[in-house]
């Protein structure tokens, strides 16, 4: 019997390794530099991790076992009671928060534009009732961080408190279950707070027609084996019905390529990320032009959350320019004329803000 065990186990180890090597993917090439710096070993390990036969099933098996063990947090993602996946946020370096707040403050002082700051809490803190109370007690206090940043910027910019509004609506579908982003409904509540803070007339939700797409999709948080336990998502597209409006969305890629899209939503393209239906996704620079009665221009520095709330803002501005500071090349940033805009908005989700969001690159905008 021991002979059979030896042959079987040796065969399993050898055949699995050979099948991984035959997967057709590029195997790391050893050279002196790679060998002496461990990068060769690290490369082989990740090659095997990605190409071992039945890796997805094995990965699923690990998650199932952890789930059976009672685990409800997987690599920093909580599995909520309602089937939502909630990404945890680690406590950041306080220096990063201060540096980001200072960068915004300096920009406002330099450009003297009407500025507004909106930090959006993530799902894990708003929907903390969905996770174990002991785990919830340990969550990073996003509300406190937002208050501190707002206190730093008081007198320099209008600060928008969206925390309370989102928390009040926490039992509604305001965050995707499997994606780290607000849904369009969540975006509407954020827009409402922004509009109130700037004394714009908030359009009631009844002014919009809602169409749905991508029923049951699973986002990036559900990639791997967690999707089995998560509820699916859908995309809601809000169309303003009170007046005839035409919207043109222009995307500028990092290489300068521009594409123009008519309307706020693109259902025709087969998107890898279904949330890109909204605005056709976001590029380093995304512009929206609206043929409404408004003449003001809005400059937005933001992140992926803009997909949820920017369609609503399009009803209040003639032109909105969205800039992803982390992705836009230097030359693109230098070409922006801040003086063309009557209003500037900094809008980031708490986790993007804590990671810096590329705000140190604001100094590249000179005009």
């Amino acid at each position, binding site marked *: *019997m*021991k*002979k*059979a*065990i*030896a*042959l*079987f*186990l*040796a065969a*399993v*180890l*050898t055949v*699995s*390794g050979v099948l*991984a090597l035959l997967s057709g993917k590029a195997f790391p090439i050893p050279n002196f530099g790679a*060998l*002496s*710096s*461990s990068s*060769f*070993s690290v490369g*082989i*390990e990740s090659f*095997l*991790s990605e190409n*071992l036969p039945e*890796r997805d099933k*094995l*990965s699923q*098996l*690990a998650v199932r*076992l952890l789930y*059976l*063990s*009672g*685990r*409800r*947090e997987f690599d920093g993602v909580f599995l909520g009671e309602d089937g939502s996946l909630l990404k945890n946020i680690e406590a950041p370096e306080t220096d990063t928060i201060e540096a980001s707040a200072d960068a915004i403050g300096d920009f406002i002082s330099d450009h003297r534009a009407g500025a507004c700051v909106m930090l959006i809490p993530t799902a894990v803190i708003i929907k903390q009732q969905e996770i*174990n*109370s*002991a*785990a919830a*007690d*340990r969550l990073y206090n996003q509300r406190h961080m937002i208050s501190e940043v707002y206190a730093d910027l008081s007198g320099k910019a209008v600060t928008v408190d969206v925390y309370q509004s989102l928390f009040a609506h926490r039992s509604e579908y305001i965050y995707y279950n499997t994606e780290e982003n607000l849904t369009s409904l969540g975006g509407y509540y954020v827009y409402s707070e922004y509009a109130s803070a700037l004394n714009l007339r908030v359009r009631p939700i009844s002014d919009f027609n809602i169409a749905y797409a991508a029923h049951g999709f699973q986002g990036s948080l559900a990639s791997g084996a967690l999707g089995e336990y998560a509820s699916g998502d859908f995309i809601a597209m809000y169309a303003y019905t009170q007046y005839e409006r035409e919207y043109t969305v222009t995307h500028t890629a990092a290489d300068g390529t521009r594409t123009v899209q008519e309307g706020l939503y693109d259902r025709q393209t087969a998107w890898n990320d279904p949330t890109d239906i909204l605005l056709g996704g976001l590029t380093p620079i995304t512009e929206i032009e609206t043929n409404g009665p408004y003449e003001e221009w809005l400059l937005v520095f933001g992140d992926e959350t803009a997909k949820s709330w920017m369609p609503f803002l399009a009803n209040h501005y003639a032109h909105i320019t969205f800039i992803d500071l982390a992705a836009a090349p230097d030359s693109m940033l230098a070409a922006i004329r801040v003086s063309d805009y009557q209003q500037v908005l900094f809008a980031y989700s708490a986790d993007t803000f804590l990671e810096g969001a590329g705000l140190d690159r604001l100094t590249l905008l000179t005009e």
Partner: protein
Amino acid sequence: MQLYSLTFLYLFLPVSLALFLITPAKWRSAALFLISIAFYGLSQPDQFLIFCGMLVLQYALSEGLRRTEGSPRLHKAIYVFGIMENAGAMILFSALNQITGRAIPLGTMVVAFTSLGYLVDVYKYDAEYETNFFRFGLFLGFFAKLYRGPLVRIDNLWKKPIPPKPTLEQIGNGLVKFIRGLAKYVLLSVPIGQVCADLKAADELTVVGAWMVMITFAMKIFFDLSGFCDMARGLGLCFGLELPKNFWFPFQSASVTEFFSRFNMTVTEFFHYYVYDNLKSEKPTPLQDALNTSLVCMLAGVWFGIRMNFIVWGLYIAAFILLEKWFLGRYLERIPRFFTGIYTFCVTMLSMVIFSADSLGEMLRYFGAMFGFSAIFSTAETAYDISGSVIPLIAGAVLLTNFMSVLIHKLRRRSPSVGGAYDLVMSTVLLALCTAYLL
């Protein structure tokens, strides 16, 4: 690459085993030495030269001793230098680890201890010199034992002049043992260690929390050490080397003396042989006995690194061994094993406070909480941390005892073929689970 990596499992092991098996007998030592060196180079490239330097230096010392047999003063000088050099290396690496936080290079403690023993053996004519560089290098640096041992003496390792070609049965046994060790580390030590870290990070130290920190810490240490030793023994069998057993269910001992003799056995025996036996007199006074026992226990603590809490841990264990020897032992013999087991468990768990503490203040805080001086018995946070890893904790608790071992032993005796089938199925399942966790 580590012993517990996919690279080792699915590439390095099959390739190196195949190369070893097709190598002619006279080159087998050299082949296995080169496999060990290649493993080290791939796993610790930044420490590769330190490791090779250590092996060459130890070989030079051995040759120096051998060639100066006719010059007693020079012979002794080389011997003393060898002892001091190895002790110095241990102190230096431990000190660097504590001061700079730089990890102790893999295997340096094992190599230094093994070499110390070898130098004493050959100096005292208890063993013959190993003149073949490859065999000497393997004795010190066989890759599988570099992590946590076991410690070997040259006479125990080289029972035959060349490593015999392992039979298929031995390879089968070796792979089963290796996968069992891998599972102990990947499926038990790592997740239980995470529970321990989470409990330790809790805002409030509760009575239950403090005990659970120490229990999970003990489990983590045990499954880490015994897991790596099982891996080493399993790989040793695959490559024709028989390495000694290092653990024998220490946490179900009936006394601290028994615990000490079952925990990290090769290290305890090493110090018994090289220190205790050399110091003891025919009729030792209680003071001599106390000093010798304390020294051995203290050195057994130093095996984990030269830190004050490891030394104090050794002295704490020594105190109970002496108490049992002089006074407690006769009472323990009369008490049912269940109760002596509880006594040993409590003493060893309290010893974990000393072993794991980062400071004196932390140590006192944990002792206080474990004896009920904490304001809170337990919190939801403690329950949450434990509830996230129920299966590893239950499996770990069962595997701390010999319950499963006895059961399987009986099964094998009753029906060898069923026992074999169990080994095959269990090894395959454990391999799949380990792979799943390593992905």
